[in-house]
Every structure is written in C-alpha cells, then in structure tokens.
C-alpha cells in the first residue's frame, strides 16, 4: 500500500510527447484504455507528423497524444495540458507554449544532451536555466532507469532495452493517476505473444515505472479521478474511424446487403480500410484499388449488382472521385463516400484536421449533381452517421457523402454500445417484376419509374429475369431510362434529381436547439467535429453567466426543414468552422440570414476557451445594445 498522499481531482489533461519513434501514440492509447476501463469520461487527440520518421530529435518529428479525462461529461481533449510528458528537448520545445503556468512537466533527462538541445536551438538546457520555474518539473532519467530495470535481460541489446522507455513512462503515469494496468498487460501479452523475451521486458519496464513512482521522493502525491456519471450501459472506447467502420457493417447487416469497400490508401482514412479488411467473417469484401477512381468505380459496380458499395478517402481523393459520383447521381444508385477531411489544398496537411471539403462535397462535380451530405459530430457519432448514410443511400438510391475529419477519425471517446436489433430497420427491397406495360399490353420494365413518395427509382439488379435494362451517364428520358437529348426532359430530370435530394428533409429530425434559459439572443451553430469544442465553449460561457443557445447540424444536404426558422429566431448567429466560412456561405445564401463566421484553419480543433470568449463578446455586445435601447 502506498504511504503517499492521494489527492482527488475532477479532471486531468495529459499530453504525451516524444519523437515519432518513441511510441507515444501507443503509450497514449494504452493510458486511454486504462482510463476508459476505470469509468472516466474522456476525449483524445492524437497529433503526429506526416513523415513516418522525421529526423530524430527535431521539431518536425514530434508526435503527441493528448487525453482529457474527468469524473464528469467530457466534450473535448482539453485546451491546455495539466501534465506534459516530454521524451526529449524537441517534445518540450514544441509543446511548452500550450502549457499553462503551474502545469506539471515530466522530462526524460537522458535525452537532454548537448547534441539534442542544439538540434532544436536551445543554447542551454531549459532544465538548468530557470526558464521552467513556473512549472512543476520532474526530471526523470527515463531511459537509463528503464535500461537499468532490464539489467537481467542479457539477451537484449541496449537499444532494445531503451525502446521499453515508453512502457516505463506509462507505468509511472499509471501510478501517478492510479490507473489499473491489467488491461495493458493483457494487451502486451497478445502483441508480443511470439516474442516472450520482448514481452517480459515490456512488462518489467511497465512495472518498474509504476514502482518508481511509488518509491521515489520526487513524486509525493498521486491522484485519483473518480468515474464519471454516465448513462447506464455497456461502453467501449472508440475512435471515429473504427466507429464509422462498425457503423457501415451494422448498417449493411440491417439492410441485408453485402458490404463492398473499394478504397485507395490515404491519410487519415486508411484505418477504415484496415478495419474493414479484417472483417471478412462478417461477409465484408474489401478491395485495395489501383487508385481513388477505381476505388469508387468498383464500389459503384458493386452497388449496380446489389451490394452496399462504399468508398473511403480524404479531400484529394474526393476530388478524383468526383466524376464517378456524378455517374452515380445519374444512375441513381446507392453509394457511400466517406471523406475523412484533412488540411488542404492539394496534399495540404495530411495528418492534421480541417473541415474545408464541405463545398467540394456539395458542389464539386460537373452539372447539377446533388448528393446527400451528412457529418458526424463526435467519434462515437461516426457509428450513427454511418447508419444514417446507409439509410439515405438505400432509401433514395443516391450517393451520400459522409464528412468526417482527422480529429474525429483518430480521436476517441467512450461509446455506449447500441443493440443491433434496435438499430433502424433499413431492409432494402429490390425490384422483382416488370412495372409497366407497353403499347401491346406486354409487361415491360421502366428503370426510371419513381416511387411517388421518395422519388427513388427501382433498384433492379442483374440476375432478375424480365428486368434487363441499360443505364448510363447520358441523360435519360424520365420513366423509360432511354437516352434523351430532349431539352424539356433534361430540365425535368435535373429538377427531379434535385427534388429527390430535397425530399430527404422529410425524414430527418428537425434541428434541435439547446437553450436552457429559453431566452438566449445568441445562437452558436456548428457542424461536424466542432461539436465538442462548441459545446464546451457554450458551457464555459453559461458558467460565466451568458445566455446562449447551441445547435449542431449533422445533415448538410439537405438541411433539416426547420433550419431557416431556427436561424431567424436569434439576433446573432455565430458559426464556428475549421475553414473560411463554408457553412456560413450556404446559410446566408439559402436563408438570407446574416450569420457571423468564426474560423480557424490551424490543423487543430478549436479550443473551448477561445470560442467561449467569442461567445461572451457577442452576448455582451447585445446586452450593451439592449441597455442603450432601454435607456433611450
């Protein structure tokens, strides 16, 4: 039993930072898993360079993983870390400016060599020059203590022993925040099942780190964060990409369709391909295509044959897929296109987040080419949005673009598991019989005869006798689907395709507004991954006394039917976006409402504090204006 003081905290933000090769993502992942099992609510933000191994010890090579956990509902990975674990000078330098004074810094002193310090421009070690005096610095010779702890492993080289330093750090942090390590031990046993010596070394380093915390006098206090109050249920921790993959599988199951993924590797979407490729047991077919175009083409071919065709990509890939998505619009077949957005333009910032593909998703094709667009708001919501995308695609026989992003893709949060049987029933019915008669009274099939309610055309798959027909990208005559260059028919078909997409609004939930006092004058409206930061900012603003309403769009095309009415209810509408105001542009154009953009494209999610200030200023300016009116 520890004889040290144990202090209770309500929330902690930890950032693990090190060289790309230091295993910080794994360390963060494991700490997160331990935290999830303990019942804290949490949110994570991995942040890593695009280079697989940037030069060692340099600023571009710094990889970090931030975790925010609490005994209450957590909305973001946290603005500023309470604790920074810095595995080298570069990690310290790259992250120091994010640290509030008073934060704790655990540094690996072994890496603070003259050479490493000079690589990042430190003339003198910041550990010695007093520049860190406002912080609680714990200098720990992480590498050498870890190596020392593995002295009995005579089969291992020094380099191999050094590699276990991340497990030592994890052990130390596990002690510091009273996290159980059983889960990590099980994980390591599975990971190194074939390498018993490496396994034992990692376990030894992990335990040594824990024991170091217990015994060293440098750490006099350890902390506890009690489990959060969460709705009853069974939970797991999930990243957006995994939730999206699982959502697609569950939706295909509920639709009774085989799932086919055609995809080309691209950051940050590749994990969906990896996840689905491992689910053959569930009937999932995945194909790594020769390029982005072939990926979506194969998916569309599969849809033509009656499968649920899916393709996954990021912004540059969406650009390449545009023509095929246009074909799918013309063919009126279901197709799911998942765009895991990243910083742009061009290759941009592959590993950083942004939500600047909204207009590309809506309008990035030739001609009038409407598609449904949905966006998840949190990592766990990626599951529900996948199910919703499949519902829309199969019901309306249309491509649906899912706009996730790097923040949701790699970030994680606890997810209360749904019951498959309670997911919406989206069973698809294929056409089985001719649906019309010709001049001679013979039964014929009209591939573009529409359902009067949804305007969807029949999904008549090859292999169905009597329904042989041809589809294509040339304009078709309504009903018969024959090639038609008739001007009136083209006008009619263009409007029909638009009306079909507009009609989806009839089956989506109205935009809900969270306005606890019921008398807010300012509305903050977001979409996609900004949900967490906006909700956290609104919470901060309310604590400070501001009356503010919040709403969040998950459907971007069409918008919920009441969107215009909601916008007009407020004196000021603030729209924060990680782009230069794309949703704001749409809202202004469609509803003639003078919404205000607040934008940031730093490759990182908004900080709640920053948004709270924006909200507070807006609310205060209105109060001032009201006071003046009253005074007059």
């Amino acid at each position, binding site marked *: 039993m520890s004889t040290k003081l144990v202090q209770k905290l309500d929330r902690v933000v930890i950032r693990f930072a090190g060289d790309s090769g230091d295993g910080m993502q794994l360390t963060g992942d494991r700490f997160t*898993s331990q935290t*999830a*099992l303990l*019942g804290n609510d949490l949110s994570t933000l991995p942040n890593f360079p695009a280079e697989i191994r940037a030069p060692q010890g340099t600023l571009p090579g710094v990889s970090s993983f931030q975790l925010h956990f609490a005994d209450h509902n957590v909305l973001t990975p946290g603005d500023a870390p309470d604790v920074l674990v810095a595995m080298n000078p570069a990690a310290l330098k790259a992250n120091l400016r994010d640290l509030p004074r008073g934060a704790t810094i655990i540094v690996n002193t072994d890496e603070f060599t003259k050479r490493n310090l000079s690589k990042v421009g430190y003339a003198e070690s910041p550990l010695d020059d007093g520049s860190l005096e406002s912080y609680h610095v714990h200098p720990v010779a992480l590498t050498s203590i870890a190596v020392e702890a593995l002295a009995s492993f005579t089969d291992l080289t020094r380099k191999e022993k050094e590699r276990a330093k991340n497990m030592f750090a994890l052990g130390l942090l596990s002690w510091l925040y009273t996290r159980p390590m059983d*889960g990590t031990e099980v994980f390591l046993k599975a990971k190194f099942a074939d390498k018993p010596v490496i396994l034992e070394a990692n376990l030894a380093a992990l335990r040594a780190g824990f024991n170091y915390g217990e015994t060293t006098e440098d750490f006099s206090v350890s902390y506890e964060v009690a*489990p959060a109050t969460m*709705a*009853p*249920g*069974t*939970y*797991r921790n999930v990243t957006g990409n995994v939730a999206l993959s*699982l959502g697609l*599988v*569950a939706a295909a*199951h509920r639709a009774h369709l*085989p799932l*086919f993924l055609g995809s080309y590797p691209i950051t940050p979407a590749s994990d969906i391909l990896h996840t689905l490729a491992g689910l*053959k*047991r*569930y*009937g999932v*077919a995945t*194909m790594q*295509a*020769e*390029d982005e*175009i*072939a990926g979506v*083409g*194969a*998916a*569309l*071919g*599969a*849809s*033509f*044959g*009656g*499968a649920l065709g899916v393709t996954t990509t990021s912004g540059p890939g969406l650009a390449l897929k545009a*023509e*095929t998505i*246009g*074909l799918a619009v013309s*063919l009126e077949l279901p197709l799911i296109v998942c765009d895991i957005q990243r910083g742009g333009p061009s290759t941009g910032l592959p590993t950083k987040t942004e939500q600047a593909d909204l207009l590309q998703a809506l309008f990035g094709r030739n001609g009038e080419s409407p598609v449904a667009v949905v966006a998840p708001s949190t990592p766990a919501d990626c599951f529900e949005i996948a199910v919703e995308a499949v519902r829309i695609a199969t019901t309306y026989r249309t491509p649906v673009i899912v706009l996730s992003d790097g923040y949701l893709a790699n970030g994680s949060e606890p997810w209360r*598991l*749904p*019951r*498959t049987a309670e997911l919406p029933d989206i069973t698809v019915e294929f056409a089985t019989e001719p649906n019309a008669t010709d001049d001679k009274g013979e039964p014929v099939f009209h591939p573009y005869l529409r359902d009067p309610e949804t305007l969807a055309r029949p999904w008549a798959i*090859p*292999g*169905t*006798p009597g329904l*042989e*027909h*041809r*589809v*294509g990208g*040339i304009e078709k005559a309504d009903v018969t689907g024959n*090639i038609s260059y008739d001007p009136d028919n083209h006008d009619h078909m263009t409007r029909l395709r638009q009306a079909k997409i507009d009609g989806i609004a009839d089956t989506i939930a109205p935009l809900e507004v969270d306005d606890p006092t019921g008398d807010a004058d300012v509305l903050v409206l977001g979409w996609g991954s900004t949900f967490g930061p906006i909700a956290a900012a609104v919470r901060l603003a309310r604590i400070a006394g501001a009356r503010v309403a919040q709403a969040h769009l998950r459907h971007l095309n069409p918008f919920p039917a009441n969107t215009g009415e909601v916008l007009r209810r407020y004196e000021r509408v603030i729209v924060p976006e990680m782009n230069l105001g794309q949703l704001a542009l749409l809202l202004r154009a469609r509803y003639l409402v003078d919404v205000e953009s607040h934008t940031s494209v730093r490759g990182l999610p908004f900080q709640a504090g920053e948004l709270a200030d924006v909200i507070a200023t807006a609310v205060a300016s209105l109060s001032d204006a009201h006071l003046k009116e009253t005074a007059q």
Partner: protein
Amino acid sequence: MTTDLGMPLSPSGAPGATGTAGVPRLADGTALTKKDFTSDQEVRWCPGCGDYAILAAVQGFLPELGLKRENIVFVSGIGCSSRFPYYLDTFGMHSIHGRAPAIATGLAATREDLSVWVVTGDGDALSIGGNHLIHALRRNVNLKILLFNNEIYGLTKGQYSPTSHVGQVTKSTPLGSLDTPFNPVSLALGAEASFVARTMDSDRQHLTSVLRAAAEHRGSALVEIYQNCPIFNDGVFDVLKDRTEAAARILHLTDGEEVAAGDNVVVRDDRGSLDVVPRADADPSRIVRHDVSAADPSAAFALSRLDSPDLGHVPMGVFRNVQRPTYDDGLREQIASAQTNEITDADIDALLAGRDTWTVGNPAGS
C-alpha cells in the same frame, strides 16, 4: 512463383472451371436466339462502321453460351464502341471514360453468378483508362474485355489515339503524330494477362471463335478487335480484308500448329526473338509451333512483336490462354473461409463491443 494461400476452392473457382461456371444456365431444351439479345434501341453508329459487324457477331454468339440472359452484363466506358450495351438486351451500364474495367471489377467481385463483359475502345482502354485496364488484367478478374481498335478517336471527331501510327496526320496532329503507339497485345501480356487474343470486325467466324475461347476462359480475357472507322480512319485494316493480301500477311495462331502466313513462316532467330522468313529458307528446327498455354508469356510476347506498322505481318488469334487464380474467386474464397455461420444480431453486437468494455449501472435487460 506463387504463394499457396491455402484456401478451399469454391466450385466455380476450382482449377479447370470455365469463365461462366457459377452463372445460371437455361433449362435443358430451351435456347435463346440472336433476336433475344437485340434491344429495342435504334443503333446509331455511322453507316459502314465496323461496330455493326461486331454487334451482329456478339448478338449471334451470346445464345451459344446457354446462359440466362438476365445474368449477362455489359459494361462500357465512353466512345463510339461504348454505346454497345444499349443495343444488347442484357443488363448494361454505359459508364464514364476509361473506368469500365474498375466498375466491372466491383460487379464481378460481388456477383459470382454474372457473366461480365467490358466493351471499350483504343482511346477509352489505353489512354484515359490505361491504369484500370492493366490492373484488371494483373488481378485476373473474371471479365471479358472487348477492345475495339480503330487507331483513332471517333466520337470526338478524329484526333489521334494511343494506337495511331507515328506520323499519322489527324485533326490534333496536323504535322503528324509524335507518340509511339501501344501494341495492345504486348501491353496486355506485360500486364500479366492470362488470356490475350486478336481478331477482326469483318471476319465473323474468327471473331466468334475468339469470343468463344474468351468466354470459356476463367479470368481476364483481353480481345483486341481491329475495327474500321469509315469516317476518320477509313481503310486502315483494308489490306487484311483482301483475301490474297490477308493470306500473305496474317500469321494465324493455332495451338500446336506452325505460325505461318502464305509462303512465310516464323522462326526463332539468334537474338532470342522471332523472325518471319520464307519457308524455303527456314531451318525446320527453328520453326515456331504455337503453344497457347505456355506458362512463360515470353513466347506470346515475342509473337506480339511481329506486328509491323505497314501490317506486313499480323498475328491473329489467341496469343495466350493460361489458368491462374482469379481475383474475384480469391476474394469470395477468403470471405467464405472466414465465415463460420450466418451473421446474426448477436454476432454484430459482439463485434461492436470489441474486447475492452465496461459497464455502468445496471443496463436494461442484463
């Protein structure tokens, strides 16, 4: 070298299976006719276009397969040839430029019960769609790819194509084309194609026999069809249509037979490639006998290099026809061997839960 993936073979993917194994057949005693494969759409190619002859040959050939009509699909790209699906009363898709092999791959991979055909042209398949073509061939997807080669862009009105000759004067090359053309057969063989053949629009009997062999083959089959464009490249293959000229120029590829045309015969030369020499001068031990199923594609490739720009010698027939695992069968087999039971809601629940769960409170029902 191949790696044995240790997968059980499904009946349709078993060694020796034909290209249409797994596709539902007509009941015994019933048959379809050419008329059954003729759609009600008015054919809109230019008068005299070689496509008419190919269409008639395909419509005439399809009943021979004995397959249910609804299980046959034609997928095309963009170009004159790609209008083909509209005129066949099967399922069909007229897609976008160059992408038909990719789209057909997704269809063939998910539908074992379909006979999937791709119709494309020299511009569609070799220019904008070159990447998809080589990858479909490399994967050996069970697709039959009919490449109509007229050495010109027809639909866009007469620009040079990737098979046009160096120096060819067209609307976009008024001083003559500078591009070295592709030899579609060499390209396909270089892309590991398991079946490669060449035939001609005007020789219905030969065309039909090649279609038959292609349909029989399990895996990708690339059939290059010399096709005349009467508007923008008229007469480009005329010398092969004249009976006397053809006899002297066409090197017929018949399995097990000597490769010869008229008085000339193909021999192995000292440099390890092939040459066409008068039979009288040929060393009998060097005369090439065609081996269509040779595992090494080098011999077929050497034959494909006998083409000359002036059509002095043109090999015709099946260059290569070998068995190797197909992508679509492999994909289905991986799934089949991973699946242990019909997937239930409980299976999906278990998948969603993963391995690290925790429970809060007393969830309803537990």
